């Protein structure tokens, strides 16, 4: 678990946008919070998994993937904005994310 500050929030946003720009071979300026990960960007769940790995390494977390899986069934992610929020919640709450509403 990590206490979030504005710098971390900005870092997470930057990493997510850079990741999708690289993967989808587009400019970061073309990606907005409203961009649909699948229909607009051609993204998939492997990208979600890759981002989880990037952030767990970056912030030294030990995350049980199954916890995130269970959480994401209840809180499905469709847009880049929702994905950034989800990554921030994972960083902030770690495995306790499952206890959030």
């Amino acid at each position, binding site marked *: 678990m990590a206490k979030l500050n504005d710098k971390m929030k900005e870092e997470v946003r930057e990493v997510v946008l850079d990741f999708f720009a690289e993967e989808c071979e587009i400019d970061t300026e073309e990606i907005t919070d409203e961009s649909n990960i699948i229909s607009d960007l051609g993204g998939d769940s492997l990208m979600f998994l*890759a981002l989880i790995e990037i952030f767990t390494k970056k912030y030294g977390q030990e995350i049980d993937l199954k916890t995130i899986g269970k959480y994401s069934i209840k809180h499905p992610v469709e847009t880049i904005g929702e994905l950034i929020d989800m990554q921030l919640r994972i960083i902030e709450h770690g495995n306790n994310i499952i206890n959030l509403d």
Partner: protein
Amino acid sequence: MKTAFIFPAFISEYIGSEIQILDAFSSNFQHYLHETSKITGDDFEEFSLENTAFTENELRSQLISYVFSCSLSDTLITHGLKPDILAGYSMGLYAALHTGGAIDFEDGIKLIKQAYIISKSTIAGIESGMGSIIGLTQDEIEEIIATYKLEAEIANTNSVHSHLVTGRLDAVNHLLNNAIEIGALSVALLNVKTPYHSKLLKGTLAEFQQFISDEVPLKKTNYPIISSINQRLVKTPDDIKTEITNNLFGNINWMHSFEKLVNVGVTQFIECGAGKSLQKISRFIPGDFKIYPMSKIKRLLT
């Protein structure tokens, strides 16, 4: 620097510019479409990325994947970019064999078609399929299979948390549903009705062996091919025959094949095929390497 050419099986999605990229460097793609039409009697020159008659048909989709792969690898070699080693992902084996000089293009088409026909006849009356599970480990998936005694198995390990499963359709569906219940990040039933890399296809062995002996002259490969089943290097006609036949029903492990390639010093991987599925699944494997899908091939040729 060592270079590996890696070959995808099916095309899960196109980047959209594959045909333009290939046509810019050679006429191989159009030539091979023409050849495939002649060999199969099916009009492959009607192919386009939007034509679902090709993209959603299992056999045609495999044949088109083979055409894309052979076109690109031939082009690369003609332009002086030669591989040190080859690896085929599942049915990508046939394009690896063609690139290695073990079979000619026409025999690859014959092998793909015959493998499909024999597989279909072997599982006649059995509803079967394949699925993907992202977010669980091999042990976690095998525990579900054992707990519910499912007639399903892991077909392929792409990475620690990414697997393909295969088997009877009801068992595969059961497995996917349970995987989601215990916390998989995502699951999907694939648009493949044949249970590749499953025990259900073990009955293909004798007939496929006989077909190869009778119809397909195999030659020693110019470049070694890594077996996706046991990661041994395949070079001789006997090795090749065993790999082709076992590839239908044997479980494969792409993660281990890729790790082996990294361990023998490969730092440059070129994905010879449409889309970039191998780049996506291989990114989870640690190591200092670069993967070039077709969309980035220009950088290597100019």
